[in-house]
């Protein structure tokens, strides 16, 4: 195996998307939400996990490549899909246990992986409102392993979320998900931020690696958390992006980002995506 050549020119944001993409295996069926999860999913599909199946909640089941969509449902993400159905259908797949991996964002997350997509402060008189669950609760409730990707700040990483939109491990005691009636062998397995990567040990968010390659320090990671985080015994530096990962990321994700805000009329590229 040739020695990996690591990129030197990348940002913490790039590291976040690329680290998230690495969580997707070639054999996975991945339920991806809007935004960063979609970017990570499309990157994985274009790089190391070309055989993974991507599920988009409006009813899209895709094993073939597609250009990164502005939101989730576009003519580009629909065209040449293996299956177009509806939201009920894809969530039945998830609820019945056929989706291995969930990829979602979030407004706030807490020590035990509970995600708030609803309100900061009191629900009836909130300091801030997010749009609500969308498919987030469904992803976190159903998928075999759920990965949460969001930018880290002290305001968003809390001991306990203000509103539990998407339950992780509740208060962290064993068996809480099963007690609530959630399917067995589900729940968050990783949190990927622009500072660090976390896993869950005994249902508690645990720092695994710090994005040291782009100048992030352990102190910076701790400064942007609201609790005294558990740290893995073998804490590492996050593996930086390789040059090849960065090349594909630049081409397929970064170059495509302007289309999030400007949709060129008739913008779908010609021909079946897989044939290009």
């Amino acid at each position: 195996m040739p020695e990996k050549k690591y990129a030197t020119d990348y940002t913490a944001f790039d590291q976040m998307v690329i680290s998230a993409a690495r969580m997707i295996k070639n054999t996975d069926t991945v339920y991806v939400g809007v935004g960063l999860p979609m970017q990570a999913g499309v990157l994985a599909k274009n790089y190391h996990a070309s055989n993974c199946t991507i599920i988009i909640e409006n009813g899209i089941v895709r094993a073939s490549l597609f250009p990164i969509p502005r939101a989730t449902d576009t003519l580009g993400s629909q065209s040449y899909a293996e299956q177009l159905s509806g939201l009920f259908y894809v969530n039945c797949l998830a609820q019945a246990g056929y989706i291995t991996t969930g990829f979602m964002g979030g407004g706030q997350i807490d020590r035990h992986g509970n995600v708030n997509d609803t309100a900061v402060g009191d629900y009836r008189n909130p300091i801030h409102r997010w749009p609500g669950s969308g498919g987030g609760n469904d992803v976190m409730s159903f998928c075999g392993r759920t990965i949460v990707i969001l930018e880290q700040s002290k305001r968003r990483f809390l001991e306990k979320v203000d509103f539990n939109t998407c339950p992780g491990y509740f208060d962290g005691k064993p068996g809480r998900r099963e007690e609530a009636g959630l399917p067995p062998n589900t729940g968050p397995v990783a949190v990927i931020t622009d500072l660090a990567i976390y896993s869950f040990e005994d249902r508690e968010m645990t720092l695994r690696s710090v994005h040291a390659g782009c100048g992030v320090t352990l102190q910076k990671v701790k400064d942007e958390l609201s609790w005294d985080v558990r740290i893995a015994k073998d804490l590492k530096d996050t593996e930086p992006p390789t040059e090849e990962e960065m090349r594909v990321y630049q081409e397929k994700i970064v170059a495509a980002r302007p289309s999030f805000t400007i949709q060129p009329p008739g913008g779908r590229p010609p021909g079946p995506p897989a044939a290009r």
Partner: protein
Amino acid sequence: MSSKVMTMSEAISKNVKSGDLLFIGGAQHGSPSAAVHEIVRQKIDHLTIIALLANTGLLVSEGLVDTVLTGYYQLDEKRSYQLQRARALGKFPRFVEYSHFGIAQALQAGYMGVPFMPTRSQIGSDMLKYNENIISIDDPFGTGKIGLVKAVVPDVGILHVQRCDAEGNAQRWGTLGVDHEGINASKKIIITTEKIVDGDVIRRDPNRTIISGFRVNAVVEQPFGAYPVHLAGCYNDGPGAIGMMTSEEAYNAYMQAAVWGVKDWNEYLENLKKVNGPDFLDKIKIQNPAKSDPVITGI
């Protein structure tokens, strides 16, 4: 001509009443934009709407909505002129929040004619504290806790489709969001369609029919009826599909152009062509149609 075929104005005035519970189809895809604008034009109020990622914001900003059953809605008032306007009118709606699957299941239960659907979604979340339509019980078959989502039976369902015959046999393709569950759950049904086709076209590919004519009350032929939202096989997103109307000035200009200053959607579309060039709508039509092999039926 079938008595079901009518103008948008007639279809809305005959079928949508103040106080109705409306299902609006087209989650992120092929929303019935023209129909929603006609409801605004007729100022039909005290509505409850159930919709998933469809363009219903104008109904809220015009103060026509009492309750929104939703899974995802821009609720940050600081960033939503439409919510600010509803607040100023004293018509800020009540939002009842589900997950997306919760909305789909509420409609599925309505479609099935049963009072609720069991679910493993939403249970354990704080949504149950504020949404009385979702509860958690002990599974009577002994598997532990299970959630129940109460059925929703809309008074009126509105769906935009690619093609439909004069009897209301409607065919829609591309992503379906909650269209199948929502339209089949609805008591009265309005179909708006890019094109009214001969029944023979429908009958050669009957698996594609999302709702049968006997269930449909009104059929409206409305080209570009989903604009500025994309519609599979027809057209791409138009400019302004996202992020529009962030100020009072932009909002009023839009409302004048799309609702108050025109008699109907066709006049609005004609005006768009006058402003942006005669080929404005042609430019968003799909450029590279992908045709499948024909589905073979027959004897």
